[in-house]
């Protein structure tokens, strides 16, 4: 799909909005009014700061915390020390590491103490993919795609409770409040790629109020127009106000919109300098198209049986998340810039404090094939080269046991992976120590993942700064060079 060029030449900040096609959806007139006196400051033009390697992002986020040692960072040594106290093993020194202090900003001090009785892996593992990366037996499909994936085994964060969900998206601890999220930065910086869909879309069940809620795809001070737009995977009612409700004729409404435009244009003759009026006329055009474009993107009629099979739509277990992943591809294809997908909401989280085996085996079975299917489908359609796929989770799980058969939250080291545009395929980057406790090699705080995404999209996060909104060095992160092609 052709990219709608956003205006590069803005004579007056107030006017340029209306003159730049539909790109205004990513930009706020009000924000500009408010900041018009900031002489040195200009809003983003919608153009990347340097040549981009990718255009869009699909961001898969597993809620609750996926065990890294039973997914992408298997630790067979845990089986050897199963049931032993950490202090009885050669790894006792881990507890003395200054990394613990650096890593931890407890949500409730004293809760989630380090679990000291080592717990064996609850599933097998073997080398998978053409490049032979150790992946657990719960992820055979994604494992089969390792030659396309850059795996990072050395992520860390600081919250040991589910506020880490918010933290993963804003880069700040939940105590620092609701700040712009990665999707909103991308939306703010690049605007729209299409003329009839929202540009930052959220699918799946978002986290609850406890852990950031809608703030995890919010825009903080960037303004609500940069919030992720939540879509139900239901083509009949994907978002609020998408239809005027039963009984209204399509033609009746179409004519209303046409008449409205006629009236607004009559007013525009009186107020020729009013950029807001022109922007509003455009916004109605887009809204009208959204009414059909959004449901269409969520209807899979024309998808072949083969494609459906790829995402597991033919099986009850994989169908729900398969539909979400297929919707993500269809939205991406239609030019949605950032698709943020949650898995594990509404009491279905990966938060295996007990019965980890049951919990993870069931949830992995639901996501493994759809996620792998998404990668394969993007590749076969030639979309993977310009799409960044991120798979992440809020933190890992403790090498030690909780409740005899579970694992607790573990912010000290865990795994995420990326694939697609600009990503070096088939690499493993970073490592945790032998029992999977600390990220020890090429450590990456969550904002390094943001920085990598922005870098590949051609954005310089510092150039997106807004006057008066001070950010710290760690907020920007650093691109993970080891996984960039």
């Amino acid at each position, binding site marked *: 799909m052709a990219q709608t060029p956003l205006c590069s030449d803005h004579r007056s900040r*107030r006017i340029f909005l209306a003159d730049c096609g539909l790109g*205004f*959806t990513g930009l*706020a*007139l*009000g924000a500009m*009014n*408010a900041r*018009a*006196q*900031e002489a040195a400051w200009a809003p983003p033009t919608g153009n990347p700061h340097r040549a981009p390697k990718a255009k869009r992002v699909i961001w898969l986020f597993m809620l609750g915390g996926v065990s890294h040692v039973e997914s992408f960072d298997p630790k067979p040594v845990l089986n050897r020390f199963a049931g032993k106290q950490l202090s009885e093993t050669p790894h006792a020194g881990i507890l003395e590491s200054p990394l613990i202090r650096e890593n931890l900003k407890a*949500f409730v001090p004293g809760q989630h103490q380090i679990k000291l009785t080592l717990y064996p892996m609850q599933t097998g593992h073997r080398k998978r993919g053409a490049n032979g990366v150790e992946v657990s037996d719960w992820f055979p499909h994604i494992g089969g795609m390792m030659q396309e994936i850059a795996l990072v085994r050395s992520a860390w964060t600081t919250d040991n409770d589910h506020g880490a969900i918010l933290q993963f998206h804003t880069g700040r601890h939940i*105590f620092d*409040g*609701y700040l712009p999220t990665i999707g909103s930065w991308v939306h703010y910086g690049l605007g729209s790629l299409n003329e009839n869909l*929202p540009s930052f879309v959220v699918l799946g069940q978002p986290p609850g*109020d*406890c852990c950031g*809620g809608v*703030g995890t795809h919010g825009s903080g001070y960037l303004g*609500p*127009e940069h919030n992720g737009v939540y879509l139900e995977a239901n083509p*009949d*009612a994907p*978002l*609020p*106000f*998408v*239809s*005027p*409700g*039963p*009984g*209204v*004729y*399509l*033609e*009746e*409404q179409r*004519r*209303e*919109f046409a*008449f*409205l435009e006629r*009236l*607004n244009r009559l*007013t525009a003759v009186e107020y*020729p*300098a*009013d950029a*807001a*009026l022109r*922007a*509003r006329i455009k*916004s*109605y055009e*887009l*809204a009208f198209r*959204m009414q059909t474009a959004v449901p269409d993107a969520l209807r899979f009629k024309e998808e072949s049986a083969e494609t459906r099979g790829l995402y597991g739509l033919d099986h009850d277990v994989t169908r729900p998340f398969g539909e979400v992943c297929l919707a993500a591809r269809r939205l991406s294809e239609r030019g949605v810039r950032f698709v943020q997908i949650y898995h594990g909401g509404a009491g279905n989280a990966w938060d295996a404090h007990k019965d980890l085996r049951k919990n993870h085996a069931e949830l992995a079975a639901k996501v493994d094939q759809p996620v792998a299917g998404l990668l394969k489908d993007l590749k076969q359609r030639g979309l993977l080269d310009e799409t960044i796929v991120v798979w992440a989770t809020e933190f890992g799980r403790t090498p030690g046991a909780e409740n005899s058969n579970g694992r607790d939250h573990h912010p000290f080291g865990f795994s995420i992976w990326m694939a697609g545009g600009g990503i070096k395929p088939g690499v493993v980057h970073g490592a945790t120590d032998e029992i999977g406790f600390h990220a020890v090699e090429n450590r990456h705080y969550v904002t390094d993942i943001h920085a990598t995404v922005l870098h590949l999209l051609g954005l310089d996060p510092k150039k997106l700064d807004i006057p*008066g909104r001070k950010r710290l060095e760690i907020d920007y992160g650093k691109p993970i060079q080891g996984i960039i092609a």
Partner: protein
Amino acid sequence: MQAAPRIAAGILAAVVLAPAADLYRDRVQGILARNCLGCHSAGARQGGLDLSTREGLLRGSDHGPVVVPGNPEASQLYKLAAHIAQPAMPLKGRKLADSDISALGDWIRAGAPFEEATIVEGVDLAKAGEHWAFRKPVRPAVTSPGNPVDHFIQQARERRGLARAPEADPRTLLRRLYVDLTGVPPTTAEMAAYLGNRSPRAYEQKVEELLASPRYGERWGRHWLDVWRYSDWYGRRQSKEVRFSQPHVWRWRDWTIESLNANKPYNRMIVEMLAGDEVAPGDPSTVRATGYLVRSWYKFNRNVWLNDTVEYTAASFLGLTLKCARCHTHKYDPIPHSDYYRFRAFFEPHDIRIDRVEGQADTFKDGVARVYDADGAKPTYRFFRGNENTPDTSVALQPAPPSLFGRGALAITPVKLPLAAYFPDSRPFTAAALIVQARDEIANIEREMVKLRDAEKAAATDAAKLKKARIDLAAAEKRLGAAQASIPAIEKRARADAATLMTPPDPNAEQLAEAARAAERKANVLRAEASLMLGQFDFDQAQGDEKKLAAATRRLEAAVAALNEPKEGYTPLGQKYPPSSTGRRLALAQWIASQDNPLTARVAVNHMWMRHFGRPLVSTVFNFGRSGKPASHPELLDWLAVEFMESGWDMKALHRRMVTSQTYRMTSAGQPHPSDPDNVYYTRMNSRRMEAEAVRDSLLAVAGKLDPTMGGPEIDREKGHEVHRRSIYFLHAPEYQMDMLEAFDAASPVECFQRNESIVPQQALALANGRLGLALARTLAAELPASGFIAAAFERVLGRPPSAAEQTASEEFLRDQTTLHRDPAGLEVYKTGQEPAVKPATDPSARARENLVHVLFNHNEFVTVR
């Protein structure tokens, strides 16, 4: 050892002539500030050394004196700086220039004269006054007749060779004034009356009328609640877990609206919000104003709570980015790191609570959310780098305003509280409410027992079920007994409470307390016996299930323990709080609300100006510091600020002053002047989009459906399309906003000093497809006369008649739409979505008229204030 004095000797001649005090001021003070105070001043005190005061200088460090006046060679400060002794200073830094070292030597030799440091933690406080906003505003002269607002605006225009636009036409002007002062447009009748009023003072009369309308408080209340970041409680509303703010903060929202309507002086409002419990401790209707502070409550972290309290108080009232000094000395403004924590100390003692209100015992259901001083002895420490894990416990900081405003301490007088304030449940309605609650419980148990008896009958043949039913029934009987016994217990506890409060003490106090204990125990025993029965049953049933057994055992043990409660004394009806308040918040509030404060009035005036004129005078509305922007019209800002204060902080007078100006009354039509593209100098008025609340309220108003009921608990946000109350009364919290308001950039309840005015397709969808708009369009269309419909609809919705072109277009639309509806067969229809609240008309032309009104609701001019 020899080198330094030798070099010094050369320079000595030059400086020794200068008086020693000058040497300090000209040289030494700067040397210390640049090289030493970063670590050795009141905030940091590395090694226990504070070089920011003479006292600290002479006290020395943990290792002993650092200066021996008259003898540099014996002074550690000199020796370390000269690298004669170790550890060489500045630690890990570059050695001082020789001339600086010798200046230190000379200064000590001259007796180390010292003036109170104006440089603290790297900040030169003496220079604070160089920034305009930190100096008191002085009323500038007005040299032309008329409204001073126009004088200053005209002056600025003239300087730039700009001309002013003519006055707006009366219709546009009246609609602007209505939306601005009341949040909704005028009715057709109000518009007609105004146009027919030939009085030269018709406009001024209208201003008076609208300022006197209760709608004014609702409109401007919402503005101020943006600045004060109103939020209903949030966290997990479904499971009633409060994590932020508190239930019943809506009473503070109502206080805001009522105070504005009563034209309470702004300085008094500040005092009531920050210290209502200290200034009028016996008056719940004043105390509710402290909901302002309650709003920042946070369940999980006291420091996050206090940070928000400190930072938003400074930003909202003072336009000060105190926030930047949380981790270090402010990078732009003269605010030392410690000043942040001295400001925090005003709030250190305070905590929140909910007081009962008459008729409701359950404080989750109703009550007054308020603050009080819980612990006046709690010390305030500076956190190194803002990290709560590294407090500087060497110095407990005393409450003080930022030192850039002068370093004199505030007079802080503790406030003695009346009984009702420190023991709110001593008020007689508490006992009455508790008794009502007990009676409700009795009724509930009785109903439950009827069901249990039925269950008993039904289980006649099933031994296990029968056993369970009988246990439940027996336990219910005990609980009933307990509830019944609790009524005399409440009465006796109330009597015993009263006895303890009498002066001189009631001679019967002891007997009354004993009676209360006995009555309370009777109820408790019965309740515990019920728990015991159920616990025993569970215990018996749980055999084999380790976990259930453990839980049942715990319950049993608790029940047994409760059998003996209370062991001595009785439980008073409610908590007793400290009988006095520190007075710290009152002192702070009075300092903020003082005419001597250079910022308070300027910041408030700027907020009001922005909301009347569409842009602020100081564009950084929450930052009047050095990194903020200068005022576009500095003299106007100061004139308004002084006028505001001298009028007794009279808000309505200020509104009047602004909206009766020629500047306000100009038309917004026309091109921007090329030299002033952003209309900073008001060559015309700014047109604006209505705020979210005004959009929804105006829809209701033009349809004649706005419910004028004021006040009360927040209304479920899901009901925004059916309940026709004003938007300000609906639930508003970070995760709980009405969809329609959110689409139109409703205030972020976390922080909103200035609304966004975005234009996004979600707004179009909300207006075009929202149930509210559809229903109101249908209602209104049915009400308007079919003949002359187009003119009537334009008049009603947009406040003006249609132009000839609009009339023609509308006629065509009605005709085409009628044709369409006449033959709907074959038309595709929307099937999904919610059922409409009002069904479309069956008559084709009536339905076409509904479509027309619906389009006018979506017209750009409906949401635009010209």
